[in-house]
């Protein structure tokens, strides 16, 4: 589904990703772990098409297309979803309106008719249950005045509504208490299908107790320095990152 080959990316003069290669197949869950500043979030943002990063070398192929050729909204319409580490506030625009606008853009891109507010309500009702959210949340402005946990749940709600093929969760666990973490993780698990894939970017192993990865990659200094199965995450939890970092510096 997604093939990243020798990806280099910079922000300003600073190279952050220094040759990432990664293949993700439909039905898989990949965890990307690593210490702060390793480039995890940058990788997530580059996949989603953040304008602040310049890809200087390498390719990303997504379902047979050159992903890097697409604008951010075209990627979203093609089924790429980024759950933001810091979801953005849009005062004055209701969640309901925002979600329907996004939903209809994606339907339009696939030649499907747009849904009117009443039809959309039915779609919403079902999805709200996935993240245990109250319908009243839909009338609040997008993320404005939301608590940290509410913002993250709102991201997963958007994911549930937009039904992406490739979901990238950028530190979705950070700042969540255990209940919110459980709700978010269960939401992700419920949305898992054989034809979609998930990338979980995280600093901590904690989330992976709930979302069990098929593959774990450790990112440091802009490179993947180790890949393995879910047991690698447990090893990292026990030993930290230092034992992996030393050989790189040597």
């Amino acid at each position, binding site marked *: 589904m997604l093939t990243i080959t020798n990806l280099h990316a910079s922000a300003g003069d600073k190279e952050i990703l220094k040759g990432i290669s990664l293949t993700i197949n439909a039905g898989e869950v990949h965890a990307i772990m690593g210490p702060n500043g390793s480039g995890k979030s940058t990788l997530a943002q580059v996949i*989603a*098409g*953040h*304008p*602040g990063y310049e890809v200087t070398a390498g390719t990303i192929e997504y379902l047979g297309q050159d992903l890097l050729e697409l*604008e*951010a*909204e075209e*990627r*979203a*319409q093609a089924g790429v*979803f*980024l759950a*933001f580490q810091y*979801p*953005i*506030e*849009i*005062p*004055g*625009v*209701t969640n*309901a*309106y*925002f979600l*329907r*606008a*996004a939903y209809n*853009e*994606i339907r339009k*891109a696939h030649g499907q008719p747009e849904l009117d*507010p009443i039809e959309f309500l039915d779609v919403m009702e079902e999805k709200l249950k996935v993240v245990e959210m109250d319908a009243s949340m839909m*009338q609040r*402005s997008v993320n404005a005045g939301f608590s940290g946990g509410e913002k993250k749940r709102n991201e997963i709600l*958007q994911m549930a509504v*937009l039904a992406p093929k490739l979901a990238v969760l950028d530190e979705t666990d950070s700042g969540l208490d255990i209940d919110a973490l459980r709700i978010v993780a269960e939401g992700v698990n419920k949305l898992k299908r054989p034809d979609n894939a998930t990338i979980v970017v995280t600093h901590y192993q904690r989330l992976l107790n709930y979302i069990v990865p098929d593959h774990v990659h450790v990112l440091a200094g802009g490179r993947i320095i180790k890949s393995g199965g879910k047991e690698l995450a447990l090893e990292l939890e026990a030993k930290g990152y230092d034992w992996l970092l030393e050989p790189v510096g040597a």
Partner: protein
Amino acid sequence: MSASIESLVNKEYAYGFVTDIESDTIPPGLSEATIRLISAKKEEPEWLLDWRLKAFRRWQTMTEPRWPNVTYDPIDYQAHTYYSAPKSVKPLQSLDEVDPELLKTYEKLGISLTEQKRLSGVAVDAIFDSVSVGTTMKSELAKAGVIFCSFGEAVREHPELVQKYLGSVVPYSDNFFAALNSAVFSDGSFVYVPKGVTCPLDLSTYFRINAANTGQFERTLIVADEGASVSYLEGCTAPKRDEHQLHAAVVEIVALDRATVKYSTVQNWYAGDSEGKGGIYNFVTKRGKALTGAKISWTQVETGSAITWKYPSVILQGDDSVGEFYSVAVVNGAQQADTGTKMIHIGRNTRSTIISKGISAGRGQNSYRGQVKVLPKAAGARNYTQCDSMLIGNRCGAHTFPYIEVANNSATLEHEASTSKIGEDQIFYCKARGLNAEHAISLIVAGFCKEVFKELPMEFALEAQQLLGISLEGSVG
């Protein structure tokens, strides 16, 4: 990103056409003779001519205000024409007699004056240059006892009402432009809603400047008697011309005990080109006086004019009276706006709310200037002010000049202001959900203006969103 913002905010002015019509236009220049001529053309009574002359003499002693945060070349008041009227317009004509060329003009502006096509639920007074072309729905209004007619007609038919209230809120000596207006005003609208009557229709005036080098000086007087209520809408457009044109209007509102007046404006005068050539100088005095338990609410969407100088205000004279001001002001290109409000709390337990949203793009300069004054006797007065600015691009400016003057300790005032830009991060977030940049920007701007748009009557809300090039469907609730 900035390219798409530019294209969004640089929409072509759609109302810039000129109507080719024969006009009765007096020569440029301003003297007592000009004023006598205007008064004679309008066949006015002596008292009104005297009032005009007093205003003119006062105006001659006054100087143009220099405190607004706007710059423009000196205005040569002798180079302007102070009266221009389509020759075909006769006093007291019925709408069936209106020149088809004029009807076509209003059709093009989206205002139908003919019986079949007019907006239901709205009565319209159409002002073309210096005169009223006609007023619709008069008979429907008459059934309710509501008087809605051109100012000239009011002077002829209801002189006692005009004489009683003219200048009672904005005296001719109030300021430079109000004095000028008082001297030379040519027409305008007059509204009287009798005691206890809720006006069955929204009333609307549509102002159109057509003639070149002609100033428009209309005067609107709205009187809501005790317990009455009325909603009034005002729209404005002008042709694209290379010269600046002067618009110095006065609006007076009298809300007697327990009356409610809601005044909404969508101002889209020609703004001039991006270099600042041409466009309307919009120097307007709007003020209402609210007596006991009365409420006056101003809502404005200001997108046009080269220069806007305008502070719709409320004198909260009676106890428990309420004043509101909701404003969206957009400047783009070389536009400059210095706009805001004054809330003067005189009575006890008076309340006022000010919500101002300024959007600056291009090289536009947007200033909010507001005064909230609580006089010593205004016990229990309350004001809430929120004024937010949004900047699009880095060549524009946003300025906030609030004056808060409190002389009663039981008053409660809160003022909040913020300035922000449309965030790159907000746009990226929307894009990551499948919206393109234009859609993202329109969504963010709509959200920013939401609190003001929801105060507009439905048909105006639609016009306002078209003006801003934004889709508000479902986001305004």
